């Protein structure tokens, strides 16, 4: 089974991002970049499925030329080869239409993507890609057993593939839902699907020799003019300090008179 996985290079979520003085962009100088954590989960799922069913895992990143580092990391985890579309910051629609071209060429049976990227949290690319391809989709893939389970320790895939169908447990408001999809299909991953493995040292050495195909974005002939415009970035308002109340009566009183919520 051939599986395509997407990996986006995002700003390190453990560092504070700074907004440029004009409020139109984020300051990237001196910033640390990491693979989107949801995408690491996608890579892990693909590798587990590959172990169960054989085939090939291909990693795609669309973005900055330095994103080869994030592809390399996925290769070090065990993926087979990479495709790097070198491009400036794009909106999810452009990303989905570029991915459609790659899917048409690579003809995978499954595309696994993070449900969203931790930089812009758009949560659109997977759904748009499914729409453009006319493929079934299961977003927010999860695991019933949970991350402390024996199934997880045994590195069992959460997505079950059998008889040309994928069974996916997905997180929805207030619970879990099970979907069966006809392959080929799109799956996007949620946090509780798996614990991604670390890139081992031998894995890192092997990854040096695995191929990454670089493709300039222009070669796809896809219109990538953004449909979404960033109007302004702003810091979230600073949280006000809390107050301590002496007893329940005071709390109720404050909720009535100050917070005006009851």
């Amino acid at each position, binding site marked *: 089974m051939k599986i395509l996985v997407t990996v986006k290079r995002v700003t390190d979520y453990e560092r504070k991002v700074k907004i440029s003085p004009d409020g139109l962009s984020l300051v990237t100088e001196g910033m640390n970049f990491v693979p989107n954590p949801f995408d690491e989960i996608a890579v892990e799922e693909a590798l587990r499925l590959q172990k169960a069913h054989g085939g090939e895992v291909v990693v795609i990143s669309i973005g900055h030329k330095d994103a080869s580092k994030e592809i390399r990391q996925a290769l070090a985890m065990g993926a087979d080869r990479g495709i790097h579309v070198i491009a400036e910051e794009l909106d999810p629609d452009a990303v989905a239409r570029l991915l459609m071209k790659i899917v048409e060429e690579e003809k995978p049976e499954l595309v696994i993507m993070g449900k969203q990227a931790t930089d812009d949290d758009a949560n659109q690319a997977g759904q748009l890609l499914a729409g453009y391809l006319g493929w079934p989709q299961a977003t927010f893939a999860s695991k019933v057993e949970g991350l402390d389970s024996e199934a997880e320790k045994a590195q069992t895939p959460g997505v079950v593939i059998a008889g040309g169908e994928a069974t996916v447990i997905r997180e929805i408001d207030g619970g879990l839902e099970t979907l069966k999809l006809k392959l080929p299909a799109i799956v996007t991953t949620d946090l509780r699907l798996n614990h991604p493995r670390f890139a*081992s*040292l*031998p894995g890192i050495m092997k990854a040096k020799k695995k191929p990454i195909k670089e493709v300039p974005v222009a070669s796809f002939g896809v219109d990538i003019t953004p449909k979404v415009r960033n109007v302004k970035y702003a810091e979230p308002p600073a949280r006000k300090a809390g107050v301590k109340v002496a007893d329940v009566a005071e709390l109720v009183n404050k909720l009535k008179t100050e917070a005006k919520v009851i």
Partner: protein
Amino acid sequence: MVAQPKPTLEAVEEQLLPGAGFLLHEAASKEIFTAERFSDEHKAFYKTAVDFVEKQVVPRHKDIEHKVDGVMPDLLRKAGELGFHMVDIPEAFGGLGLDKTTTCLVSEALARQGSFSVAIGAHNGIGMLPLVFFGSDELKKEWLPKFADASVIGAYALTEPGSGSDALAAKTTAVLSEDGKHWVLNGSKMWITNGHIADVFTVFAKIDGKKFSAFLVPAKTPGLSIGREEPKMGIRGSSTTALSFDNVKVPKENLLGEEGKGHKIAFNILNMGRLRLGVAVMGGCKMILSVATKYAKERKQFGQSLSEFRIIQQKLADMAVATYCGESTSYRTTGSVDAATAKAKDSPNLAQKLVDAIEEYNIEASIMKVSGSEALDYIADEAVQIHGGYGYSEEYAVECAYRDSRINRIFEGTNEINRMLIPGTILKRAMKGQLDIMPVTQEIQESLHRAASPVPQQGTGPLAEEQQLAELVRKATVYTLGTAAMKLMTELEKEQEQLTMLADMIIDAYTIDTVVRRAMQAQNETNEKAAALHRLFAKVAAVEIYDRAMARARRIVVELFPDADQYTRFMELKRLHLDVTAPVVVLKRQIAEAVIEADGYPLSYV
């Protein structure tokens, strides 16, 4: 002027200085290896090690510290799955055969949990390297794959109840059995890390009570008994026990290296151990600085965060400067070893070449061990201070870090022993004609005899003054070392007080040379924000090192020449005097600002 740097190991190779060579050439004039020149793989290895320790080791801190059964072996095996034990195993024996920079980067990352760091070092460092460097091919084939996945855990047994620093005075004996097939060991060992969890020990014993040698001894061998766990001040999660040998029989083939050459094994393993420890303690410095910084930002007194008080800022800045010094000397030294062995990668003699290179830079390794372990103690102490009463509570991480730190000045050769080795080894090499320090001393003495005023500023550029200070420190160091050697000759060996002060001068000379050079190179190799930080670090370190080095040089001269000669020497030293006008307090505030913004040490590898 220095040529435009080529940020590769080859550039370092071309200008590589021999061990202690930094004393012989104009300060900060040679290409050195630095963290700015890590390869993508170096960074990826480091990241894997950081991820592993943070997600798998640190969360089990309590279990580790309480020595919950099986936790440490389990973690060592998990580390094995990721390939950490393969770094120093040659490819021919199923390992990765990576460079020493990688070994040390991994050690730096793993230092975030003290007990684990010591246990893994005893396994794949001092426990395994005697086999890697000196074992027969048969022994390597049999044992190395088991070390690689930690199905076998290693340990190193040199110290005895009666012989610690004086390791060669060991009393454990080995006698060949009558049938000539076995060595029979008798005696006892003390303070053996991994004692309870080890499956195999590298044991030092004297053949027939004379020929000091090393043997590979499986833990289950009859007659070998393991003592009780030693209750310890720190690194409580690591196992430390005595061993006793009562007619322990091991196959003849388990001798490592040659009969009577055990001292070579012991000392070379210690050299590598010091290099690694020097880097690991620096990793500890970074971890503690980060904990202290976060606490200082959160804790409020007098309506302010502690981090807003200037004296706390100064502490954070001083901690960061000490860390920068350690980071710089660490990777310069691993880079020197790597550059010295780069061409031997495919040589059948690789093991010997590695041993030679590590020995070549053993002075630098001692420098890193001494200055790094003392920096860590200082940083742990200040971190407790920043925490106030909370730092004294077991509930806070700095309490454990403070206790864990202390061992580093004791093992891998006490700092006293290492200090005496630093000038001692230099003079020994000079005597053997391996290091041309005497002609350089004469040159410097003559120039100081003649010169009327301080050396004029040499370089240009943003770090010209620091380069000049480094050069003055180098000259003062060579001057005092050479003068002391000429005055006392072989008597110098007995003058431990002088040797110790000289060691401190040499440590400072290596450090100032390294940080200034690193900052110079960094100007073209990083973004402007980082380049500015490098300048700040180098400036503060250079000024402080210069001040204390000159005071020390004067003190050494006073002690050496309590007579008429003193005045002449004083005048000579005076010619190295420079009125340093750069204030450092304001620079430290800027460093503190960067530390506070970054929640810790402000430079990162990735």
